[in-house]
């Protein structure tokens, strides 16, 4: 069965510092990977997906198949980045497959 692990429940960084939210997955094939974010009092929303290979709000994430990781990185954290971040995996096949989520990491950016 597929599994997503986010080892850090809470991550606190100072404003301007680099941030890395860790995500590891277990799946024997080539998954599709996503990062979802939930800001305070807002709904869960897609931040980025690995197939897009784009930077959103300064965040990037690279799929490392050797390490089965999809860590989320940003070189300079901002206060508005404080939120709950969820890594998620989908098995690629025709149509839509259910997302498997990690437990989430709460990022707190301190001024």
């Amino acid at each position, binding site marked *: 069965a597929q599994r*997503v692990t986010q080892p850090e429940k809470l991550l606190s960084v100072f404003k301007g510092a680099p941030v890395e939210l860790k995500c590891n997955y277990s799946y024997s094939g080539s998954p*599709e990977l*996503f990062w*979802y974010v939930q800001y305070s009092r807002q*709904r*869960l*929303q*897609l931040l980025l*997906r690995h197939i897009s290979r784009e930077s959103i709000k300064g965040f990037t994430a690279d799929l490392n198949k050797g390490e089965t990781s999809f860590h989320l990185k940003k070189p300079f954290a901002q206060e508005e980045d404080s939120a709950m971040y*969820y890594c998620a995996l*989908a098995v*690629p*096949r*025709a*149509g*839509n*497959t*259910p*997302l*498997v*989520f*990690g*437990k*989430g990491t709460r990022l707190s950016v301190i001024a």
Partner: protein
Amino acid sequence: EAGVTQFPSHSVIEKGQTVTLRCDPISGHDNLYWYRRVMGKEIKFLLHFVKESKQDESGMPNNRFLAERTGGTYSTLKVQPAELEDSGVYFCASSQQGNNSPLHFGNGTRLTVT
């Protein structure tokens, strides 16, 4: 566009009672999903509708949970009878057709069973 809406936002019921949660997806989204987050655990998949048909209900915990999507528009999730372990936040999400199209989530319904 109007996003995914869920009703109610909060519900507190006693063990043994019945609760019905409602989800209105984004208009035109054929895919509708229910997920649940129990405190301290992952957001877990419950089931997936494509239009009015249940595509995948492998995540439904047991037969106390019944989901419907009559007419392929809004969906309801009924819990009957509710148990203490059903407490959590129930999320609905919808997406367009297409391989693993991004999900648009509702605000969730926080269910507390006492």
